[in-house]
Each structure stands twice: as structure tokens, then as C-alpha cells.
């Protein structure tokens, strides 16, 4: 009977597979473990790894963050809070900016949401603390003095809003319209 034969075959195959499995694990006993021992050996992480969050600066050494609230809006655990304010020259900035790292899940959505490349995740993951409150990072803890992954981008060269000087000075902008122009 072909059916019976088939079942026999399947049982045999199963047994062989079982033995193969046991053999494989048994062989592993004699292989060198692949474990890297962490504090003695720190593996270099790729630059796009997602860990500690920083606030970067633009090439003019100004804070990139314009406190647009997009990061806090996109944050699935609501760990970012801030207050936007206006600087004397009209530039929008964060009066205070706070990330509660005890809540952060390092999903990187804030970085994706950031229109000015201000908020960035770095590969530095060693941020454990015993006191939860020390994990609440303020702006001065987050702000670094470099541009992070992109050193060139300067949002205020593209924005088209007046910060200093006349309108029309940003990239791809025409001179301001002359309201008294005689041209049709």
C-alpha cells in the first residue's frame, strides 16, 4: 500500500531529521562560542544605530532646533517636551527642551520627523543610571557643538522667513517684490 509506505517513509525521515538535529547541537558543544564579552570588548556600532539622542548645530554654530514640536508629536511614548520661543532676531528656538530617556524607546521617529536635522540619534547606548530623574535630559545635556550626521544643512538658508537682514536672501529666492513697481 503506497499510503503505508509513505507513512513509513515519513517516520524514517522524521527520525533522521531528529538525529541530525541532535547531532548539530552536539557538534556545537565543541565549537568556539561566538559571544563577544561586552565590557571587555565594545563592538563599534554603525553610525545609524539608534541610541542616545542629541541636538545638533548648523554650520553657523546656531542651534538647529526650531522647536516645531514635530518630534514630540511623532514620539510614540511622549518622552519629548519643549517650549518654543522667539529670539530677539525673530529666530524660533526652544526655550527649554526635555527628553525623558527613561521613557524613550529609541525608535528614531523623532529623527525622521525633524525638518531641520536638529534631533539625531547616536550610537552611544551606554546611558544607564540608577536614579530615574538623572535620565531626564535638558537642552544643555542634549545640545552638542557639531552637526552630527550632516554637517552642511542649514535650515535657515532655505526657510524663507526673515531672521536677519532683508527678505529674499535665502536659497532659490527672488528679491522682495517692489510694491510700487510700474511694471504691469
Amino acid at each position, binding site marked *: 500500500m503506497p499510503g503505508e509506505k509513505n507513512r513509513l517513509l515519513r517516520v524514517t525521515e522524521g527520525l533522521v531529521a531528529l538525529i541530525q538535529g541532535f547531532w548539530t547541537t552536539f557538534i556545537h558543544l565543541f565549537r568556539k562560542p561566538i559571544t563577544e564579552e561586552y565590557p571587555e570588548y565594545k563592538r563599534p556600532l554603525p553610525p545609524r544605530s539608534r541610541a542616545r539622542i542629541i541636538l545638533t548645530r548648523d554650520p553657523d554654530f546656531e542651534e538647529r532646533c526650531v522647536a516645531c514640536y514635530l518630534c514630540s508629536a511623532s514620539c510614540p511614548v511622549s518622552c519629548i517636551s519643549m517650549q518654543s520661543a522667539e529670539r530677539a532676531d525673530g529666530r524660533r528656538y526652544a526655550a*527649554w527642551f526635555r527628553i525623558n530617556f527613561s521613557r524613550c524607546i529609541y525608535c528614531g521617529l523623532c529623527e525622521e520627523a525633524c525638518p531641520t536635522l536638529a534631533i539625531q540619534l547616536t550610537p552611544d547606548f551606554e546611558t544607564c543610571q540608577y536614579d530615574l530623574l538623572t535620565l*531626564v535630559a535638558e537642552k544643555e545635556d542634549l545640545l552638542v557643538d557639531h552637526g552630527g550626521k550632516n554637517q552642511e544643512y542649514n*535650515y535657515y538658508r532655505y*526657510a524663507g522667513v526673515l531672521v536677519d537682514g532683508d527678505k529674499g536672501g535665502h536659497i532659490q529666492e527672488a528679491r522682495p517684490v517692489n510694491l510700487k*513697481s510700474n511694471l504691469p
Partner: protein
Amino acid sequence: MPQLIIDRREIEVPAGTKVIEAAARLGIIIPRFCYHPALGSVGACRVCAVKFLEGPVKGVEMSCMTAAQDGMVVSTTHPEAMEFRRYVIEWLMLHHPHDCPVCDEGGHCLLQDETVSGGHGLRRYLGLKRTYRDQYLGAFVQHEMNRCIHCWRCRRFYQDFAGYRDYGVMQIGNRTYFGRFADGPLESPFAGNLIDLCPTGVLTDKPARFKGRRWDLERAPSLCLHCSLGCNITGSARYREMIRVEGRLNEAVNGYFICDRGRFGFAYANHPERARTPRLDGQEVTWEEACRTAAHRLTRISREYGPGAIAVWGSTRSSLATLGVLQRLCREQGWLGPQFFNSPSRERKVKAAISRLDAGVAVSLADLEKADFLLVAGADPVNEAPMLALGLRQAWRRGATVVVLDPRPVHLPLEFEHLPVPPGGIDLCLDLLVRAAVSHSATEGLLPEAAAAFFNNLSCEYPGDQPLQDRLVSLGMKLKESKNPVIVCGLDIVRESTVVLAADHSRLLRAAKDRAGLFYLLPGPNAFGAGLLSLAGEPSSPSYADMLAAAEQGRIKALVMMETDPFRTFAGQPQFLAALDRLEFLLVLDYLPTPLTDRVQFFLPTTTVFEEEPSGWVNQEGRCQQAAPIYVGGRPISQEGAGSHPPRVFLAGIPGGEPQPGGQTLAALGVALKGTGAPLYLEELDTWLAELNPVFAPLLESKVTHPGVRLLPEARGDYAFSHPNKATLRDVPDDHLELLLVDWTFGTEELSGYAPPTQEVEQPPRLTMQSRDALRLGLGPGDRVSLALGGESITLDLEIVENMASGMMVLPRHRQLAGQKFPEGPILVPLQNIHKV
């Protein structure tokens, strides 16, 4: 009634309805920028394109420019229409700056929504972007012209709808610019509506600039308390701080818009000096202790001197619950009061007005816009209740005649007849105008008996002044032809007889024409509620001044001041301070940092309309509306955090979160006084109110929902006309000038006086006088004058105008001015008391 099919759903709409509106009735919101229900269609933005499949119109057309017609089959999601709209968005976005992150509109921007939903993500245009220079438009509105998409909403509202002429459109084509001729503050007191109307971030809220995104705000439907109209607003708060206020649609009251006083006057709720903890003898105490101690002391005084030794003041800026509990507390304890009005004549006028309103004759602001003849007696709408001016303008745009009988230099954003008669002469003009209008009906014998008797009593002698006589006659003829006249009566400067007369005349007009309306302006957002309670209360509760005199004589030992600021009434008066000093116990409950809160021994904080509890308010037409709480109160984080950061300590309670709504505080006090733990006062307050005054009954039957319930008696046939005295044009002696204390849009209203944005725009107080009087006194324009008033003297700038009554001076009740601001009766100033400085 055309019937059409939109997106496979059938609808029947009134003739003339645009397709975009018909779709909105089905809940289909077609994209739009230039179209606005209040402003109508212009077809400027081209983004409301839909596909007409069948019927009289075929193809892709603008839904805002096409009137609904029978047999139309419309698809809003047809690929052709969608593609059209997608291209339109792309064109509109050609020059749009890359600034959503720093734009305050981001998050509630119509352009942003339509761009994202239309799928336009990448700019294909590689050329240079057009830029504009921005303008300074005053303290309220921020201008950022680069973001403009030329929908024309701002200009259409500012010039067409509101009638102001200093903001508009310049240049043509690609250079079209919306702004002023030169930098400067916008003149319109309705300019804030541009913020709501602008579909993108060109015009944004300056006081709320960079305060937060829409999605982070706590928002709730609330009410404006800056005059008696009861406009509907949406309040937004964040981090325990009121951030901004927007207009909220209520077709019966304010429509879509509100005035700038209501929009920017909310910041009293965030005042840094607002006391937020109960205080006892200068010590901060717990809530329970405060209530216990207050009850204890009041009980002791009541036992020693009798309950009549305790007097209670209220005000018209408290919610209905607060007023009701206050009234009930006084009843039960036998205390004196409560008195809600700061002058007896005000009280009498409010009572007279309220007792004469009924459901038949009272008109809402929306009804008023449909009137064809508006007789404004003793009211200065822009200054007293700005939204009334906007309502008058809408009526005028529909062809109504507007006549203003007022001694003040009234300005309205419309063409109107101003008869600058003294307060005493308003009665005469009313008599003459209405008499002329109804004399035909009277002679035909068409008037009911009571009305005819009243008609026969009216003054019929025209004043000697010929031009005034001519104008009265011609206006009387117009009133005669009108079909739906409305009498608007202010309560501030008019004589008490005018209030009654306005009601009588509206009844007379109604008898002659079947339709006529009556519209009062009341002092304070809940003056109607306070008036209803006063009407039901003691025949005459002692006035503030009486109570003070009694306190000075030692007959009153304790005073309870509920959300009232006596310094506004008796500013700096030694008698007032002496009376306060003689009191054994002074309990102040308030949410404002009034001058009193600092000096009292016993203080209980209450909450503003924006915090914690829904509250009821009755506007000037008797409409009870509910303001929902917006946020849980407490000291704003910006004040708590000492500058840069909010505090990092986490507490169980909210800092400064102790204040309770006034009604609850009083109810707790009542419980403490009775010594029982039973809940009372608030739970069955509505029942108690309905027993007190049957007009409160609707509160029991239905929840106070949008657009509010009117607390008015049904129209009755047996209206009791008054017996008017013979009116004269002038009742002031020649060697005196009558001083009118008046309200201004900014600077005189109590609540907005604590808000920095409105403080910024208020003008310094000035004395206004007619040129003839100035000539008589030898004064010229630009002079500074000193005015001796009741032993004190004030010095201020003089303004000379033509369009006001002579024999008058007008002085604002400015918050920067000391002196009694709510005097009894007309103030007559002898000519020698006015000097040039």
C-alpha cells in the same frame, strides 16, 4: 428647492445655495481656501473644483461659484476633479516658503492639510521663489506675506464684512500684496478675525506666537465675558496657561467672528499676581481650614450682632451658579444682599430692561442683522459691545437704515444717521420718531387700547433746532416704511426712563407692524442672570454705598465680596477705606488680582471661566449658554518653572491648583455654616432657581446646549405700557457741562484690563468735548485740561470733535484713571471746574 446628487447621495437645498454648501450639508467638505460661509464665494483659489456629471452644468467647475440646480449629478472625487485640484495646489505652492516648522499655523493650516491630502510632496518648480517684505500690523496680528496664496479672505472680511478701510490689497498679478499702506496697527477692533480666516500662516496670532502647536493645546468651547453679548469662543490652553482664543460659530449670537477685546482679553487668567491659595490673616492656609474659620467667624458675628450685620456683594462677572448660590446663601442665613450691581441706577435699569423683555420682542444678534431699521438709543456699539457694530453693519449691508441717538461721538463701520442729542433728549427723539411711524395706524384705529393710550401720551413737540427737526421727520418716514424695526438700547449713559421707553416703543411698533425687536446692552457678561435673581430677591437690596455707610456707622460688621472689585466703584475714596477698616471681618473671593486681594485679611481664590467646571452665563437677550472647562487650573508652568525649565519634581497636587469655582466655594462655606456634611446648593440649584423665578425653568428641562436656551417669559398680550413724562431735549443747566463716564473698546473693561495684549493697545484716557463747548471754555485742540470732580482733580488730554452733543463731556472709565467710575445720577460739572493746564 433644487434637488441634486452629490457623490451618489441626494439632497434638496434652498434655491441659490452653492454646491460647496450643499455638499457641506451632506458632510462632504470640498477643499476650499477663498470660500467662507460668512464671506461668500469669489472663485479666487480654484481649489473647490468638482466634476459635474449630469445636469445643466457639465465638466469640472468651481463648486463655490455654481449654484445648486435641479438634476445636477456631482462627483467630488472624480479623477478629473482630483487632478485639477492637485495641479491647483501645486501652483499655489510654487512660491510658498519652506517654513512650516517655524510657522505658527503649522498643525491647523488649511493649506498644509490640502497639500498633504492632495499628495503634493515635492516641488517641481526650480525657479526663484517670489518674496515679499512684511509689515508691522500692531500688537495682535503677525504678518508673514511670503506664505500668501491670494485667497482674498482677509481683504473681503476687513473691508466688505467689517467695513474698515486701512487694510487691503495692492499691486496686481504675481505681485499682489495684502497689507496696509504703511506699517502700523490695524484700526479695526475685529482685526483678530483675520487670524482665524487666513487659511495659511500669513496672519497669525501675535500674543500666541510660538506658544505651542494646535495638537498640544487643550481646547474647549467657551464663552467671551468681555461684554454682555455672550459671543462663543474656543479657548486653547497649554501647560496650565491660556494661550489663545478663537471665534466659535453660533448662528444665533456671533456667527463666526468675535471682537479683539474678546480674542485678546483672556490673559487675566494667567496673571502672575493672581492669588491662588486661601489666605487667613496674611498666612496661607488649607482649604478646609479656610472654610471652617470663615464659617466660624461669620457665625460668631451673626450671633453677636444678628445676621443683618453681614452684607454680601456680588458682581455681574460671576457664573450663574455662583450668583445663584450666593443668593441662596443670603436667603438662608438672613444676610444683607446680595447686591450684584455697583450702582442703584444700574440695578434699576437692568431690572427694568429684563422685566420688559419677552420671547416675542427680544431679538438675538443674528435676528438683528435681518432688521431693516435699527434705532440705536444711547449705545456706542464699537466701544461697549463691538460685535453689535458688526451686526449693525450686516444689517446695513442688507439695506437697513441705522439711526444712532447718542450724545457721544459714535463711530460705526457703516453709513448711519447720528443724532447727537443729550441723554435727556433721547426720550424725545424716540417719541417723535416712533410717533411719526405709527401715527397712521393710530388714526386708523388699528392699535390696541393700551398701545393707543400710550401713543396719545407721547411728546409731539419737535425741538426748535431746524436741521434736527428735518432729520427726525425724514427718519420717521423711513421708520414708517420699515417692516422689521429693532430698537437697540444701551443701559450705560441713558436715563432710567429711556430703558422703559425703548421697551414701550418696540411694543408700539410691534402693535403697528406685527414685527419689531428690542435689543438691550447690559453691563457685564452675566448681568441678565444677576438681574433675574435681583428681580426675584428682596424688593430693594441695599446698594454698595448704603452698605458702606452702614459699615462706617458700625451697623455692618462683616462683608463678603464675591468676585467684585469695589476699587473700580469707589477708587481711592477715604470713606470707602475707612469703612473697610471698621469691619470685623472682610471675606474676599476672587480670581482677579484686584487691589483688594492684597489688603484683605481673609481671601479665598476662585477660578476663571476657563478652569475646571462648566459654567452657565446669560447674555443680554436672556440666552443661557454654557462654557466648558478648558484646563485644570493651577499656576502656569511658565511661571512655576522660574524661567528656563519646568520643575522636575513630581507632586501629587498641582501647584496653585487650590482654587475652586466660586459656586463650589460658596457651597462649601454654606455646608460649613450649617455644620452638616450633606451636599447642598449646587446639586439642586436649578430646581431652587426655578422655584425662585419661573423663567429659570428651561434649565431644568434641558441641558444648556448649543446655541443656548433663552430664559425669557412667553410673549403676553397684556403688556403694561408706562406713562411717559413730557420729554425735553436738554435737562442740564447752561452753566454746567454734563460729564458722561463711558466705556472704550480697550482700557475700561475690567477683565481685559488685566491682559497684557489689550493693555498694549489701549489709548491713554482723554476728555472729549464738542467744539462749541471748547470754544465757550477757551480750549483748543491738543490742550491738557484739569477737571475738578468731587474734591479731586484729574489732568488729561482734550479731544475736540464735532459729532457729539454739546453741553457734554465724555470721559472713559479708564483703568488708569482714579475716581468714582459708577456714580449715581448725572454728573454736572460747573464750567469753572474745567481749566486749561
